[in-house]
């Protein structure tokens, strides 16, 4: 967890990129991570493709489906990550669904995550109460950050509660929506960001969902310590030129 703590202590305008492991090809995972590290990216979220991604919009759904058709699986992803562990210094976060963690065996899963160099985990559908009662100690044991999400519909009390449970940063979802691309933030979203600022949380925030270009990213940086881009990045990936398409996309953002 040290690398990711250091990042949030030292840096502003944090650029975080999400992509789905095994998309567009089974082998693209390592190349995407390496290219992102060389191109300004501060934090990488690796999506574990899932058959029933209810929190995800069409772009990530399709990438997950393709990744599963490509035969991406958890053990393969772990071995791909392990193989590049030494050369990658940018912190990596794994993002998946609770059933994947449960089925693998919770402690075995965390042990593996630690072993392959991951810094944190997001499980979109693991409720805070169950994390608190059942898993908090395990995440601490393996020094893995568990990151919570809040939305414009979350009450102040719930945001405060989740900000205390969340480790390293709190993931602020810009709108009440599944993941996906929007052109810009509306007033309602900006009001939400201001509401979060007023709460003076003791933990940094990153804004995600709906960031797709330079403008929306810089807007996210005004209200939080940085932004997370997922669907727009996945849309930009070109199977025939992973490196070039990643570079071009990052250049278009910062």
């Amino acid at each position, binding site marked *: 967890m040290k690398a990711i703590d250091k990042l949030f202590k030292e840096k502003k305008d944090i650029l975080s990129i999400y992509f789905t492991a095994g998309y567009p090809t089974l082998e693209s995972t390592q190349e995407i991570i390496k290219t992102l590290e060389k191109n300004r990216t501060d934090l990488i979220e690796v999506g574990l493709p*899932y*058959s*029933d*991604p*209810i*929190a*995800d*919009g069409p772009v990530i*759904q399709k990438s997950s*489906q393709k990744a*599963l058709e490509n035969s991406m*699986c*958890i053990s393969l992803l772990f071995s791909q990550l392990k193989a590049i562990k030494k050369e990658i210094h940018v912190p990596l976060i794994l993002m998946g*669904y*609770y*059933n*994947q*963690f*449960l*089925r*693998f065996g919770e402690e075995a899963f965390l042990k593996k995550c630690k072993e392959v160099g991951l810094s944190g985990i997001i499980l*979109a*559908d*693991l*409720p805070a109460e*169950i994390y608190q009662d059942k898993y908090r100690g395990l995440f601490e044991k393996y020094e893995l950050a568990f990151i*919570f*999400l*809040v*939305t414009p*519909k*979350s*009450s102040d009390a*719930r945001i405060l509660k*989740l900000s205390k449970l969340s480790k390293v940063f709190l993931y602020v*979802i810009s709108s*009440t*929506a*599944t993941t996906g691309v929007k052109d810009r933030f509306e007033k309602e979203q900006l009001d939400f960001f201001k509401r979060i600022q007023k709460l003076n949380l003791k933990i940094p925030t990153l804004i995600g969902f709906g960031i797709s270009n330079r403008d929306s990213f810089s807007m996210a940086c005004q209200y939080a310590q940085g932004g997370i881009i997922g669907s727009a990045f996945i849309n930009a990936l070109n199977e025939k030129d992973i490196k070039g398409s990643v570079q071009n996309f990052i250049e278009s953002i910062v």
Partner: protein
Amino acid sequence: MNSPLIDEKGFYGDFGGAFVPEMLWPNIEELQECYQRIIAEKDFQADFKILLRDYVGRPTPLFFCEKLSRKYNARIYLKREDLNHTGAHKINNTIGQALMAKRLGKRKIIAETGAGQHGVATATVCALLDLECTVFMGAFDMQRQKPNVARMKMLNAKVIPVISGNKTLKDAVNETLRYWINHPETYYLIGSVVGPHPYPKMVAYFQSVISEEIRKQVFKKEGRTAPDYIIACVGGGSNAAGAFYHFLKDLSVQLIAVEAAGLGTHTDQTAATTVKGSKGVLHGSMTLVMQDKDGQIIEPYSISAGLDYPGIGPMHAHLFQNRRAQFLNVTDKEALQATYELTQLEGIIPALESAHALAALAKLSFKKEEVVVVNLSGRGDKDMESYIKTIDQFSKDEGYR
């Protein structure tokens, strides 16, 4: 609303709960906070009961099947949920939840549907109560249940084809959940005893009128407070939940849950969750699900669109685990045979789902005086296309006697 077996966090033993992304939390929380108070209100109960009586046509008859009884050597009754308005038990729940939505101030209803029965029941109640209705249905299911798609459209519901995954019920639920995340002002009217708490508990309660009536009717006809057996099919499990509900704690009643084996549990073309499944999370609740080693949900298969679901409701997972209910499974072929048998012996064409429950009769051995209630959850009109295709194969010249 004192529901059996469930704790205040929505768990039936190890199963249940609300495993939903933060985006859905406010919607679920609102429902969790309000549903019990609303259901307990006198005018809610009055509205619900009047509509069940005058609009749905309840109580549904408990019919004694003389010839089926002779054949299976027991006293066999059918609980005629097929005679409900819209042709299945589904409408009991849609009336309850639509009244709930109105009291929560929601005007727009969303729902998923597999066989189309829940979609039709939802569209029907929405027409009656002036609610806007959008139904998500797997594109593949739309193909095999055309009459129901037409009914929903006639009732002015918007039917949205779901093209993700296997294009069946599981994918329709996913898509409805996503729509709900993006449109929190809508009310999600879920069709079975599945989904995050409080849905399984609420749907079971609205369907419990089935077992409430069975108790009274068995008393009237047999002079006993309970039957020896209750048999019902289980996809998600709402008709079974309703038929079992008031007998859950009455251990003298054998509860038989029948899953769809599809082409057989030895193949991968099956929907028999208790045979093939293991503990996992599906559609917001911890239950038994069909999944691979990585926790990816496996696409089920059954000839019956209403049973083509890779999980069962958490209450049923609990009944399976603690052996309160016995789980059997029935293949496509056995279900079709049961359809033709009932049609020719008793003059009733059952839905494919209900035919699975009927087919279980041949797998059990009864004593002559034992009272057996089969929940005939729906009628066969919607399945005529499947039946027409198989008529030569299953119609016997010598009949089924």
